[in-house]
């Protein structure tokens, strides 16, 4: 039974990684940049929920909605102020460093407002735990909600990209910016929309993450952010199903590594598996291999 419970926990953690990785992978696909500040948007979302519930006394669902709106605006503002001017910069490293700067900025704003102490985050999930197999297997409510939201988000996002005009525009921009502009697509608007969706997803991921692991400090988002980035690369960066597969595999590996091998080595195991995957298949599991020509 413990195996199944580890597996379920792994899928749950993996779902959170997948939701974060979606934001990474979409932004990477369209702007070809690693958004290092993505993890800190997660942290911002979690703080907003905490303030909305304990400070403003909003019901949990409304608080989550506030966080989603807040993070969406935050994402669009970051994109237009810090990233857009560098979109056509001579070196792609410039925007990477700016993203690191934004990450420091968000962490330090949170540090100033909320202090360095870890705050306890009360779960916002109203679903009771599910007891199976005569009490030998308990699945927490948070786990159920996390996995369920991941599925809903995946289906919703796939439909959005396949069926809607904006989604098709996103695909076009990620394939060829210049050609998309010639076809009358508003490239800057599409990039902003991508950041908005990614940041909204980050807010949801933040709430789910902090409900499952109820502690919150200004650096909460950094490590999950990096792990989700690993998940995105794992599955093939730029690919949406890849982010799902990468995220869930990563979550399972991490929980199993913690449970069966060594809790101190869990991170090393995750990174080790990533290295092996990339050496065998250098563009990730579902990544496209583009042949370079002279």
């Amino acid at each position, binding site marked *: 039974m413990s195996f199944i419970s580890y597996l379920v926990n792994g899928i749950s953690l993996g779902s959170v990684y997948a939701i974060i990785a979606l934001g990474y992978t979409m932004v990477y696909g369209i702007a070809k940049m690693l958004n290092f500040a993505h993890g800190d948007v997660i942290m911002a979302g979690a703080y907003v929920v905490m303030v909305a519930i304990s400070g403003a006394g909003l019901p949990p669902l409304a608080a989550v909605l506030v966080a989603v709106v807040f993070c969406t605006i935050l994402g669009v503002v970051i994109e237009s102020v810090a990233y857009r001017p560098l979109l056509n910069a001579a070196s792609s490293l410039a925007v*990477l460093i700016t993203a690191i700067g934004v990450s420091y900025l968000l962490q330090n704003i949170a540090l100033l407002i909320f202090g360095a102490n870890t705050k306890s985050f009360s779960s916002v999930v109203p679903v009771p735990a599910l007891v199976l197999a005569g009490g030998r297997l308990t699945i927490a409510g948070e786990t159920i909600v996390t996995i369920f939201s991941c599925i809903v988000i995946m289906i919703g996002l796939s439909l959005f990209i396949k069926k809607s005009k904006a989604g098709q525009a996103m695909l076009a921009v990620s394939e060829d910016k210049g050609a998309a502009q010639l076809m009358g697509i508003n490239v800057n608007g599409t990039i902003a929309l991508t950041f908005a969706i990614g940041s909204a997803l980050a807010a949801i991921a933040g709430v789910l993450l902090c409900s499952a692991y109820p502690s919150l400090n200004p650096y909460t988002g950094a490590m999950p952010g990096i792990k989700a980035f690993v998940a995105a690369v794992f599955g093939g960066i730029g690919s949406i199903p890849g982010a799902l597969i990468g995220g869930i595999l990563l979550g399972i590996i991490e929980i199993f590594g913690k449970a069966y091998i060594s809790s101190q080595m869990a991170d090393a195991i995750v990174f*080790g598996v990533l290295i092996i995957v990339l050496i065998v298949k250098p563009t990730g599991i579902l990544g496209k291999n583009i042949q370079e020509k002279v």
Partner: protein
Amino acid sequence: MTMKKMSKTTKSNMITYLMVIVIFLVVEILVFTGNVSSLLQGLLVPLCAYIILAVSLNLTVGILGELSLGHAGFMCVGAFTSAFFSKCTVDTITASGLRYFLALLIGAAAAGICGILIGIPVLRLKGDYLAIVTLAFGEIIKNIVNILFIGRDSNGFHFSTKDSLSLGLEDGGKVIVNGPQGITGTPKDSTFFIGVVLILVTLFIVLNLIHSRSGRAIMAIRDNRIAAESVGINITKYKLMAFSISASLAGVAGVIYAHNLATLTAQPKNFGYNMSIMILVFVVLGGIGNMRGSIIAAIILTLLPELLRSLSDYRMLIYAVVLIVMMLFNWSPKAIEWRGKYSSKFRRKNKKSTKEAA
């Protein structure tokens, strides 16, 4: 007279060496006249390590053209192997100069070997994939160091990955590497002077490499891999060469760093990806491929938070804003255009005024 005979690159290299020496002399004078606070004095040796890290990473990022986010991992290897060596031999080799020299060689060699071992699989990857794998290797190195326990008694060395008790040491045995508690009691042999000498040595190695035949081959690979391959350049060899030299120089920085601390521990702060990113910030802000820029950026960005100390809580906030604004100003196409316009106007004005004066 001799300056005229020198080629342009030699001149530029000389300026770089001179800059380091002048900065060293200015700092020494300031310290001597008591104008440097003890806090800043404590930063001088780590600053030397950061400068070497920045210059060596610039070799990977600027000259080889690959983004590495695992530089702190190599520093970690150099730091721990050399601290281990120094602690073991602190009683047998009493001459601190010789011991430090051997520690340097060991740290550089260990990091260099790690660079080759990691480089062989990693350098097959490209761009952001390479970045994330180097980040992963850096984290793994940090993680391994944190679970490593090494003790020594009359029977020799004992290893464990669990805790210091499971080493099974005899009564007189000593724990040398104590897992998360790291290495305590490394002799504090690093001085600012040694640090500056090592910066000069690093610069000498890197600048000479860049202007050698190998260096041109490495830059050819950076500019166009396929074209370089088609003129017969051995891609793997030269990539590996640049990567492992960069790694072993990071190891040297680790040796300086380790021999300046009473207790050496591997934390996210000093050997995690945050550190690698900080070094990358030095490199990019100073100018990719520009060694002098790396040195200046490392100095400014290390001192900035300390100089802003009076602002206490706001200092890192200001640091972040300064970083973003500097990046936008340096790299945004619009800002570059604006700067070009402004500077050409300025130049025209200057010309006019000199004409009028004449």
